[in-house]
């Protein structure tokens, strides 16, 4: 890819808005496709099925607070490790199954179900 070529291309079609995300894991671009700052700035967000927190960390650039939940302890351990390493203060992770979401009384402005349904 040339240095001048856009890495984030959008196209409106009758089927919806298409966004070419050309680099992985630059998932910040994925979050931008979902609305980016417009949708997440200052909001509380729950990322259900967060895995290692890939999207949770990216949305945390905009959000006030992000909770990532997942039923896999090993993935959550990696997410916490990154959280501590990068000294993130607005992201946390918790063990929870999407089918029961036992997370107490917390309520959120936004929820993400990415590859989780």
């Amino acid at each position: 890819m040339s240095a001048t070529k856009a890495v984030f291309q959008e196209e409106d079609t009758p089927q919806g808005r298409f966004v070419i995300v050309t680099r992985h894991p630059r998932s910040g671009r994925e979050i931008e496709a979902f609305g980016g700052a417009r949708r997440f700035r200052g909001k509380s967000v729950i990322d259900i099925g967060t895995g290692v927190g890939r999207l949770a960390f990216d949305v945390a650039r905009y959000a006030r607070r992000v909770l990532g939940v997942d039923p896999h302890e090993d993935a959550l351990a990696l997410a916490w490790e990154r959280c501590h390493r990068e000294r993130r203060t607005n992201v946390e992770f918790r063990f929870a199954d999407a089918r029961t979401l036992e997370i107490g009384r917390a309520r959120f402005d936004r929820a993400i179900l990415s590859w989780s349904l």
Partner: protein
Amino acid sequence: MVDALRQTHRVLRPHGQLIDARPDASRIPRVIARGRVRAHLRQGEDADKRDGASDEAVARVKADGLFRSLERGVIWHENTLGDLRALDKYAAGSSRYEGYVRGERAKLLPFRKGPLSLRRAIKFEVLERL
């Protein structure tokens, strides 16, 4: 799946928004080498059934008045998997794919040293919690 959507409804504030993003099985995954599509992966029947069930679950909660659709779209997500051996391993180990479209793996042999990327369509829908 409906359970997960109902629980998501419970933890969202009124008029909060859910972003549901999943692979779009109607657009076949493409294997990219040197900037061009060289082959395609084939999705398995089980994954087709799971996708159909997910679509039905979303339709159900909308019909039940829990959510309404605000926006939808498709992103093309591309990740680099390395050489052909890495792609073979991924395609064989995935719960979603059943290898390559028939006869297409041979087209990748000239590019076996990579880098090979997988470009997939991800459909997303923004739903408002009612």
